[in-house]
C-alpha cells in the first residue's frame, strides 16, 4: 500500500511541478500562439496531477485532500523527477525538458493504461490522448530549433548539455516503482529510439552520458524545488485554509 501511495504521489508531484514551471511562461512566450500552447500543456499536466492527488488522498485517508497534498507537504516529501524542477532558462531548455518528459510519459502511460490498478489505468488512458499533442508539439520545436538558425542550434546544444545528467533518473526505478511492475527497460529503449529519431532530424546528437543525477523520486532535490514550493505554497502557508 505504501508503495502505491508513493508511486501515485511521484506521478502527481512530477506533473504538478512541470505544470508550475511551464506556467512561468504565461504572458512571456516568444509569440502568442506558443505562449498559449505551453500554458495549455500546463493545464493538461495540472489536470493529470489533480487526478493523481485525488487518488493518493483516497489511499492515504486521514482527511488528506488534493490540496493538502499539493500545498502542505515539504520539499523532502516531494517525489518529482529532478528534470521537471530545473529552471526554464530559455525557450530551448524549456522545449527540450518538455520533449524528454512527454516522450517518457507517452511510453510509461502506454504501460500504465494496461496496469492492473484500475485507477492508475484510467488516468493513463485519459492522459495519453493529451500527451500525444505534447509529444508532437515539443518534437516539432526540437527539430525547428536544432535545424534552425545558428543561434537556435547553439541554444539547443547548450540545453542538451544542461539537461544531460537528468534524463537517466526516469529509467532507474526506486523501490516503490519496482513494486509497480513496470518495464522501465522497455521505456528506456523506446525513449532512446524516439529521441534519436527526432535528434537526427534536428541535426543534434544525444550525448553519451557518464553521470546520472538521482534522488528526486525519494525526496532529495536540487535547490530549485524549494523556490518553486515557496511561491506555489505561499498563500496556503500564510493564510491557512484560504479559499477562492
Amino acid at each position, binding site marked *: 500500500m505504501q508503495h502505491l501511495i508513493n508511486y501515485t504521489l511521484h506521478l502527481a508531484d512530477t506533473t504538478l511541478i512541470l505544470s508550475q514551471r511551464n506556467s512561468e511562461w504565461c504572458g512571456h512566450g516568444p509569440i502568442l*500562439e*506558443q505562449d*498559449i*500552447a505551453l500554458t*495549455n*500543456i500546463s*493545464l*493538461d*499536466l*495540472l*489536470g*493529470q496531477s*489533480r*487526478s493523481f492527488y485525488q487518488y493518493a488522498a483516497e489511499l492515504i485517508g486521514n482527511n488528506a485532500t488534493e490540496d493538502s497534498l499539493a500545498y502542505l507537504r515539504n520539499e523532502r516529501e516531494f517525489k518529482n523527477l529532478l528534470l521537471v524542477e530545473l529552471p526554464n532558462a530559455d525557450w530551448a531548455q524549456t522545449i527540450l525538458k518538455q520533449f524528454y518528459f512527454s516522450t517518457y510519459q*507517452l511510453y510509461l502511460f502506454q504501460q500504465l493504461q494496461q496496469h492492473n490498478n*484500475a485507477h492508475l*489505468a*484510467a*488516468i493513463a*488512458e*485519459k*492522459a495519453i*490522448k*493529451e*500527451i*500525444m*499533442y505534447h*509529444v*508532437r*508539439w515539443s*518534437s*516539432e520545436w526540437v*527539430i525547428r530549433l536544432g535545424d534552425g538558425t545558428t543561434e537556435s542550434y547553439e541554444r539547443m546544444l547548450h540545453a542538451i548539455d544542461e539537461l544531460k545528467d537528468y534524463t537517466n533518473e526516469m529509467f532507474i526505478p526506486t523501490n516503490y516503482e519496482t513494486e509497480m511492475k513496470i518495464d522501465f527497460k522497455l521505456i528506456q529503449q523506446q525513449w532512446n529510439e524516439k529521441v534519436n529519431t*527526432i535528434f537526427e*532530424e534536428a541535426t543534434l546528437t544525444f550525448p553519451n552520458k557518464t553521470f546520472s543525477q538521482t534522488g528526486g523520486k525519494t525526496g532529495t532535490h536540487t535547490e530549485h524545488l524549494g523556490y518553486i514550493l515557496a511561491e506555489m505554497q505561499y498563500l496556503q502557508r500564510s493564510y491557512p485554509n484560504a479559499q477562492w
Partner: protein
Amino acid sequence: MVENENILIKKIWKILASVTDPEIPVLTIIDLGIVRDVVINNEEIEVIITPTYMGCPAMDMISMNIKAALFEQGYKNISIKNILSPAWTTDWMSEEGKQKLKAYGIAPPNPKQIVCTPNAFQEEEVVQCPKCNSYNTQLISRFGSTACKALYKCYHCHEPFEYFKCH
C-alpha cells in the same frame, strides 16, 4: 420513491439537457457527450460525467450547474461522479451539437480522427471554415483559447476561426 425509476431517469436526462457548457454556451452537456449515465441508488440520483480534457476548468462549474438545475426542479439528493475511463472522445458529440457549434462560429470536430499520433510534422487535418465553408484553411496553432480547441485561419474569407479538435 413513488415515481417509476425509468420515468424519473428520463426526466433527469431532460433536465440535464438544459445545462450548458460555461465556455461554449451553445452546447449542452448532452451535446458534448460528457454525461455518461444517470443511476438511481435508493433515493439518490447519481449523475456520471467524464471530462473532455483532464485540466478543463469548466468541469467543476458543470458539476455545480448540474446540481443547481436538478435542485431547481425539486431533486435534492444528488451526487456527481467523475469517471475517466472510457476516455471522452469527440465521437460522442451529437450531430445537433456539431451543427450548433458551426452556427456559433466554431468548426466542429471532423467525423473521423485523422491526426492523433505523436509523429512530428505530419499532414494536418483539413478543416472547413465555419463562416464561408471553404476548405482553403490552415492551422495556426494546435492549442487555442480552451483545451479543446485549435486555431485556424481561412484563406478564402480571411477570417481566423477556432476548431473543436478531434480527440
